[in-house]
């Protein structure tokens, strides 16, 4: 009996868990590359089509908003180096997808990358986690108000992390890109006022709110710090594609190098380990992937 328990705990050890996770952290994420570059191209084409009268402003607004909601996650894969996978010759793909994909949201990639790494290092730390202000919002309305104000809160985090030279360098680089983006927006709003409002300003505000809600607030709200404790499985009635399967954000915080497209498969393979560790909600992980929300409503 003792031998069986010993065998079982060996089978479900942290080393075994990591071994299983690693098998999902190898594949090139071509789906995310396609979405990242594709949405940016579609968004740019909206400008041509709307400005030249080939498409109505309203249709352009709807498509641009859709693009803005797709814009963050491909860059997020790039931030974790999930295109290059440690191959220095492929790092240009991380940089390309990371930068281009974020144009729709008007975020500077270098700044997003370093602040996101701090988010992983200090998840839910009120002083050191860049996303804490979103996570600590009491309700979606507060998240909306926070995101509508823009990135001014980031400056206080610069003070916290400025002794990290890489962070400071990339942050400053990001600020310069941010200024260039703002100048571009000012030029465009003078030349094409309503187009800039409906193809860029409003879509990126909606996209930012969407990203903050589903990527930050839902997965981390109301939680503490530490492995298995800072993220959660959560439920929603919508099919999982509407939330980029962010009900599984938990697995991303355990293993950020697992490609986003492979997370549903990974979570099913890792289910026995999560059950062994008593992770809340792990018992609701289904045995098969489908289009529905992966974690059932209890």
């Amino acid at each position: 009996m003792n031998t069986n328990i010993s065998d079982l705990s060996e089978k479900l050890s942290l080393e075994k868990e990591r071994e299983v996770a690693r098998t999902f952290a190898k594949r090139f994420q071509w789906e995310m590359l396609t979405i990242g570059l594709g949405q940016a191209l579609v968004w740019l084409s909206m400008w041509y089509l709307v400005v030249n009268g080939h498409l109505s402003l309203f249709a352009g607004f709807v498509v641009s908003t859709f693009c803005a909601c797709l814009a963050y996650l491909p860059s997020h894969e790039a931030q974790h180096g999930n295109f290059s996978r440690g191959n220095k010759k492929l790092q240009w793909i991380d940089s390309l997808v990371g930068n281009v994909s974020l144009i729709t949201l008007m975020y500077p990639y270098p700044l997003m990358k370093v602040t996101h790494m701090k988010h992983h290092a200090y998840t839910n730390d009120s002083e050191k986690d860049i996303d804490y202000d979103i996570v600590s919002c009491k309700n979606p309305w507060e998240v909306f108000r926070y995101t509508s104000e823009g990135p001014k809160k980031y400056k206080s985090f610069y003070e916290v992390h400025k002794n990290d030279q890489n962070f400071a360098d990339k942050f400053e680089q990001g600020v310069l890109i941010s200024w260039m983006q703002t100048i571009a927006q000012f030029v465009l709003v003078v030349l094409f006022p309503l187009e800039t409002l409906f193809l860029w300003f409003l879509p990126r505000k909606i996209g930012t709110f969407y990203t903050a809600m589903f990527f930050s607030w839902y997965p981390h709200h109301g939680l503490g710090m530490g492995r298995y404790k800072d993220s959660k499985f959560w439920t929603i009635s919508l099919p999982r594609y509407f939330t980029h399967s962010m009900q599984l954000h938990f697995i991303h915080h355990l293993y950020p190098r697992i490609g986003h497209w492979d997370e549903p498969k990974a979570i099913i393979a890792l289910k026995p380990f999560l059950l062994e560790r008593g992770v809340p909600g792990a018992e609701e992980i289904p045995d098969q992937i489908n289009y529905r929300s992966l974690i059932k409503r209890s």
Partner: protein
Amino acid sequence: MKIIIEFISSHITSWGMVWFGLIFWGSIINEITSFNFFNTTASSFNLTPYIFGLSIGLIAKMRGRWV
């Protein structure tokens, strides 16, 4: 160079909302009023939208937030 960047950064922190109100919201309001809903004369509504945008920016600066 660093002094210039710090000056710009400091200026944007203090006055970014005001510039945004003037340029961004001023341009948007100008475009909307150019449809001439209010039947105003050309000379008055060229400047008024930008003053209105500037006012929105100043109010946001005083409140410390837009919404």
